[in-house]
């Protein structure tokens, strides 16, 4: 199983029936395909609606996702303006947001919007999402392509938001961050706590109920 699929499958287990969810671009958009049959979630799109669905058939005027790509609408969708969209996001009306990360640190800080001198795309809606969503899940590969840890004692890149990450899910491990404590709660099948430590540059506690990720 590819790392991305492992991560998406594990993230899907965090969703509950009726949740309002905002998914970042890339990997997070894979999560819905791994939801249990019958579970209903509503996807929020920060360009102004609730009820994002995959495109079926021809594109319809004005029906695009936050990347500007044609998409579909669920029955029961609702459209609104950008002020309302971010009232929902910042006001705690989004139950969970799943975003990719460049770096996360042990204080629950996230950096995912710029690399000085290299990539300055702008924060778009990410800062509001990470600040306002009820639960922030960072879904990312455990290390960079160069094998460098992405989970650090302290982020070196400019932050997206301070102390807002609740969970970090990688292909190797699942961490929960509560009351300022970074706790390993699951590791990948076949991996050990030492494997996780070797690839993680943050202090973390190991849960008394440490489990193996269930990817069934």
């Amino acid at each position, binding site marked *: 199983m590819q790392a991305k699929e492992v991560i998406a499958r594990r993230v899907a287990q965090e969703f509950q*029936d*009726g949740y*309002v969810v905002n998914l970042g671009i890339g990997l997070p958009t894979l999560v819905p395909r791994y939801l249990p049959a019958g579970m*209903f979630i*509503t996807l*929020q799109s920060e360009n102004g*609606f*609730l*009820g994002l669905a995959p495109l079926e058939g021809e594109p319809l005027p004005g029906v695009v996702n936050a990347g500007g790509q044609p998409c579909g*609408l*669920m*029955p*029961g*969708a*609702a*459209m*609104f303006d950008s002020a309302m969209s*971010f*009232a*929902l*996001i*910042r*006001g*705690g*009306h989004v139950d969970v947001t799943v975003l990719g990360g460049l770096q996360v640190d042990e204080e629950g800080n996230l950096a995912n919007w710029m690399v000085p001198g290299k990539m300055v795309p702008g924060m778009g809606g990410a800062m509001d999402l990470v*600040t*306002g969503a009820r639960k922030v899940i960072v879904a990312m590969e455990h290390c960079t392509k160069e094998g460098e840890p992405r989970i650090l004692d302290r982020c070196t890149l400019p932050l997206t938001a301070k102390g807002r990450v609740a969970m970090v899910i990688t292909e190797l491990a699942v961490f929960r961050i509560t009351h300022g404590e970074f706790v390993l709660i699951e590791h990948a099948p076949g991996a050990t706590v030492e494997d996780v430590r070797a690839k993680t540059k943050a202090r973390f506690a190991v849960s008394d109920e440490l489990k193996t990720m269930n990817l069934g």
Partner: protein
Amino acid sequence: MALDKQVDWSDVGPLFRDGISVMFGGFMGVGTPDGLVSVLREQGTKNLTLIGNDTAAPETGIGPLISDGHVKKVIVSHIGTNPVTGKKMIAGELDVDLVPQGTLAERIRCGGAGLGGVLTPTGVGTVVEEGKAKMVVDGKTFLVELPLRADVAILKAKRADRAGNLVYERAARNFNPIMALAADLVIAEVDEIVDIGEIDPDHVMTPAALVDKIVLARRQ
């Protein structure tokens, strides 16, 4: 499939407890959910804090709750049309917090939108500024007005789908949409409930994600 949020009238009562704060939609009673007000009244809920535009009239909107002594405090912009409110205030039986109408709307919106407050010029140089922080921006003075939230919001809409998307009718919209953002539990009384998909997404005025329960208004 989206959750069906319709409940029976018998399910509504247990949602209210003594001492809760309740935001109510409506302007002079227009856009106020009369059935939900009746539930609060009939089950004798006490010590309510009511947040809304006005106290309507003794027998209109939330007026009966005040007349019958269910309310300990109101946060409103206007009480002049309900003499009972004034009498109870003077008698020390009711705490009245008067807020300019636009400020009331912004404070509720802040409470629902995750904002810590808003700077408004309204009330500068009047009794409204007492006890409030001020801030000067570009040489102009503003009051810092803080968010309002409530335990429960009771709304009135013309139409809902089963998921809870709401459409209001004409000037009965008023405070309802912003209150839908600003309470822990949002209950809408509606004149009509339709299937999901029957309301054009562009016509939804309050998205279903904000609404917890919908109840069909009893015919008058």
